């Protein structure tokens, strides 16, 4: 699960050109980390109006990144672009709060188009 994966969710639907930069900090392959990653990809797929660049960072392997980016809770999702920077902690199971936290679109239009 280490490494970077670019998800072009939404099948190129005249994107606004912005690629969201999401960094998911995890520690090892714990249940919570795996859950967070699956939840994140799911949410991204559900919101194809943006492009996402998701990096998964295992701080166990690079602890200095945890210090540099002020990571305390695991898992933490950081949206570094577009600004403002936002943080979401937890396994991202509460979709509504993830959307609010990332300032994605409000969750009024509950998605029907499931991947």
């Amino acid at each position, binding site marked *: 699960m280490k490494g970077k994966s670019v998800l072009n969710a939404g099948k190129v639907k005249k994107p606004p050109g912005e690629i969201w930069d999401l960094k998911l*900090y995890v*520690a*090892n392959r*714990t249940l*919570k980390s795996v*859950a*967070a990653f699956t*939840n994140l990809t799911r949410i991204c797929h559900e919101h194809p109006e943006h492009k996402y660049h998701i990096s998964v960072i295992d*701080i*166990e392997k690079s*602890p*200095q990144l*945890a*210090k540099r980016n*002020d*990571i*305390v*809770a*695991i*898992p*933490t*999702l950081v949206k570094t672009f577009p600004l403002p*920077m*936002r*943080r*979401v*902690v*937890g*396994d*991202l*199971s*509460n*979709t509504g*709060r*993830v959307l*609010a*936290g990332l300032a994605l679109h409000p969750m009024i239009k509950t998605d029907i188009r499931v991947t």
Partner: protein
Amino acid sequence: MAQAEKRPRSFGPHLEKALTGINGLDEVTFGGLPKGRPTLVCGAAGCGKTLFAMEFLVRGATQFNEPGVFMSFEETADELTKNVSSLGFDLNHLVASKLLLIDHVRVERSEIEETGEYDLDGLFIRLEHAINSIGAKRVVLDTVESLFAGLPNPMILRAELRRLFRWLKDKGMTAIITGEKGDNTLTRHGLEEYVSDCVIFLDHRVTDQLSTRRLRIVKYRGSTHGTNEYPFLIEEKGISVLPITSIGLNHPVTTQRISTGIPRLDTMLGGKGYFRGSSILLSGTAGTGKTSVAASFIDAACRRKERCIFFAFEESSAQIIRNMRSVGVDLEPWVTKGLLRFHAERPSVYGLETHLLTMHKALNEFKPAVVVVDPITNLISAGNPIDVKSMLTRLIDFLKMNQITTMFTTLTSAGGPLEQSEVGISSLADVWLFLRDIEIGGERNRGMYILKSRGMAHSNQIREFVLTDKGIDLLDVYVGPSGVLTGSARLAQEAQEKGTELAQQQEIELKKRNLDSKRKALEAQMAALHAELEAGSAEMKRISEQEKERQKRGFEDRKAIALIRKADHESKRGGPK
């Protein structure tokens, strides 16, 4: 003896302790904080928690070669560095030499959205990374409770903190966790439930406009510890905790005696002066020469090349030097030689504890053999009598432990009960000298006597205490039916006695002459009688010889007659007798 001491230890592994290096704390805790365990340091805002924790790390790094990690949840590394640089801690240097690592953990509630289960592995990993990168032995988490403000789920946090403290213990880190004081609890979020090996409570109180910081060890599992509240001070070299009283009365003692600086007073004290390391209380009314006695004592000590500190709470050092010159004691050379140090301070500049601490500090720095505190009564303006007494008890304890001979002067108010030291410390003094005014015949003179002097024979006499330009002199006073005579009355008495003596001598001379002539007359008489006696005995001798002659002749006559009568037997009977 050695075996007896070891026996209790054999019951199990002894609790290991890590010296903190913080002034005085190691004495109060009997050896430091529990090694390899977390300690909770809590207190209200501004009580010095962060500083305490930081000093723990700095001392560990510089004195015990134990690198430390400071995990700050409130201040950034920059702020911390600036804050403690005033205490002479150069954090940048320590960080550069890998003895210290500061990690600032910023948790901003407004930026965080909680979306499900999480843990604090991030914190663990950062801490572990920090510990491993410098080989840390000490850890500080300052103030970990801020996490409660930053992260919304207290349930998770509690579980995680419990895990964190456990983890620190497993790693063998001697840790300090700071916590803000709660309303009725030691910490706002009940951290004391998790960190239960050692809890230290810091307090900052203001009484009568004087602030005192105090430290108390609430608990210390597996170890005895001082249970009192110990005042502490944040000063230019860090925190100083001072034990209020030493744990037991076990001062080292010596039989070495040191001169008082006044030869006659030495004589009064068994001819040798004070015991080294004793405490001398010098009380007297105003203007009786207390400072002069103290200055003579210091002068004598400096002559012996001993170091002295003069704590003056009344006069400036320059004033004392000038005034003492007038009684023939020049202290200035000793100051320039570095043997004597003055600490002149107004008693009201700060609280008693601070006074005590500055005194402790001066004593520890200068390591004197003799200390004078002049006068201790002025300290009352810096606290109430009970506090003053407890402070002095502590000071005397400290001085005695260090074999420092101390002289305290106290001012007794005229008209009050004289034999009462104002702050009731006379029981702490080994020697109590009393200076008093003697008011007779329209003049005031000074008298001195020894109220007590433990462990030595001492004079019970009142001496007249005279300040001359060559120093202090003690003279005998005249005790007569009209009381004690001093000053000019004494001189008059002396003259009078001289006169009387002269008259007496003349009288004796006269008597002698009379007796002499009488004796001569008697001797003449005796010679006449003797001659008479001799004449008498010569006469006696002559008479008895005549008698013998007569008897002899009588016998021969009878013999001749008997011969003629032919009376045989009669001749036999009439033999010469």
